[in-house]
């Protein structure tokens, strides 16, 4: 297996192999808690801590664990880290912990985390594994926050409401009311809206990729300079 450079790992995590938009892993939390920016950010950070930590730990013990017992070992590591995060959130951001509810313990079952542990961390050195974990979870978190922002904006007509639940009292004034007197669009806040906007985001990524590819191809196949055909009549436009 060819080793990747750190910048390749970064590009993979954030764009080319984004867990949310390309691998479509971890859809349950992605769709379940992306109803507002604060929920999305909270879960994104929690997932980031667990994924980076689990990749680090898995990479450290990769030569000591045999193939037969690797998956239970990974799950144990992830479960331990998730419990730590859960206790931390209970201590510092209790209200957000209550809002996110079951989705915090469910980080254990997030396929992104087990997937990266098995596919990357268990086969790579510590530094690439940690970078991969961080970038993958950053890509996941970004999708989560964008989705949360879109749904909050269209569903409630606000942005960054309730950020103080995560970031303390200084964030209380961050709430932006984009559309005053807005009628809440329940459809967008409920799960069907999450599926719809997720689909739109994936479509947008594919459109951008297609355009980039088209441009790259156009650059490669630039027509040869000079005309091969000599025109003797008519005007040349």
């Amino acid at each position, binding site marked *: 297996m060819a080793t990747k450079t750190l910048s390749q790992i970064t590009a993979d995590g954030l764009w080319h192999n984004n867990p949310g938009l390309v691998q479509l892993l971890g859809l349950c939390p992605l769709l379940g808690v992306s109803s507002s920016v604060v929920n999305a950010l909270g879960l994104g950070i929690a997932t980031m801590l667990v994924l980076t930590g689990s990749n680090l730990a898995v990479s450290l013990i990769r030569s000591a664990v045999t193939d037969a017992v690797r998956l239970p070992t990974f799950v144990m590591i992830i479960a331990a880290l998730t419990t730590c995060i859960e206790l931390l959130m209970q201590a510092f951001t209790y209200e957000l912990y209550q809002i996110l509810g079951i989705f915090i313990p469910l980080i254990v079952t997030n396929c992104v985390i087990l997937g990266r542990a098995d596919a990357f961390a268990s086969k790579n050195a510590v530094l690439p594994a940690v970078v991969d974990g961080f970038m993958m979870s950053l890509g996941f978190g970004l999708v989560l926050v964008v989705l949360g922002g879109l749904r909050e904006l269209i569903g409630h007509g606000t942005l960054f409401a309730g950020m103080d639940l995560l970031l303390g009292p200084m964030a209380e004034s961050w709430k932006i009311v984009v559309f005053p007197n807005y009628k809440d669009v*329940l459809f967008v806040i409920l799960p069907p809206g999450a599926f719809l906007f997720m689909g739109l985001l994936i479509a947008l990524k594919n459109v951008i990729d297609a355009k980039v590819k088209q441009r790259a191809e156009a650059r490669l196949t630039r027509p040869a300079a000079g005309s091969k055909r000599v025109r003797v009549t008519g005007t040349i436009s």
Partner: protein
Amino acid sequence: MALVRMTSPHAKGNNHTQTIMLWVLGATLPGILAMTWFFGFGTLINICFASLVALAVESLILWIRKRPISFYLRDGSALVTAWLLALALPPYAPWWLTLVATAFAIVFGKQLYGGLGQNPFNPAMLGYAVVLISFPVEMTSWPAWRGIEALMPNVQATLGLFEGLSRIFLPATQAIDGWTLATPLDVVKTNASLTMTELQASKPVFGSFAGHGWEWISLAYLAGGIALLYKRIYTWHAPVGMLGALAIMSLLFWNGSGSGSNGSPLFHLLSGASMLGAFFIVTDPVSGATSKQGRLIFGAGVGILVYCIRAWGGYPDAVAFAVLLMNLAAPTIDYYSTPRTYGHRKAKRGMGKTD
């Protein structure tokens, strides 16, 4: 003289998409007239507004998709979606409600799947379900009908054109009380203590055999549907399947005329969107089942689901949800109801398929 070069077929049948769509539009006219008579100009204003939105949104998406705009607009399918949606929405729904429903129906219900013929769901019902979930208050504000003043002096029907325009386009200035009433299905659903006779005596919403006004609107849709059957725009299978299943279900679970009654079969057939659904929604050739037997099963499924949601579900009427759920089932129904092809002894169905 310009000679037009054309390839075969040269014969023109009456089964052009445009002809069919125009017939469907024409067949809604009795229903539109009845609704305008009972509820005022709201339905007409909604139809005009929804048509404008549908045509605008359809051309926009066709332009983005680089498709010939006038060719696809001329088939009239966007207009049918807009009209059916406008008939299903409450007559004085605020303008943004119609806008959201129509735009969603055309963009997400039809064009995102690839346009007419590719949509797995009925676009009008998809738009309806989205606004029903999103804006329950507006979607349940049905106006009072013509002649309400004689029965309830504190409620006024909205009959004037300008009054209707201001209700639709200036919704912020309008109070919701004084001109809306619960629909008959609502009244029967929320009733817990009165017997049917007491209910009919105490609530002026009931007419001679179903809801006041509603019964005539339903009969007008029935008339339009029979005209379409006569013109062979569609076969009898889907409407009969739906109405038959609804009648049988409401007969089986009628539950007498006490306070636990779910309403008589006639009440269910002539209330809410039963007739509109049976003759204009479940007959959609794109999102429904294909074969005759399949259409019968499809219609019956819609009828059973409509009754289940009305009697035991969370919503007073259910045609939109029932149709969407059966749309999901339509490919499976097709799979198991393929007709026998000429020259074969047995139909190849289900697991017996060889392809």
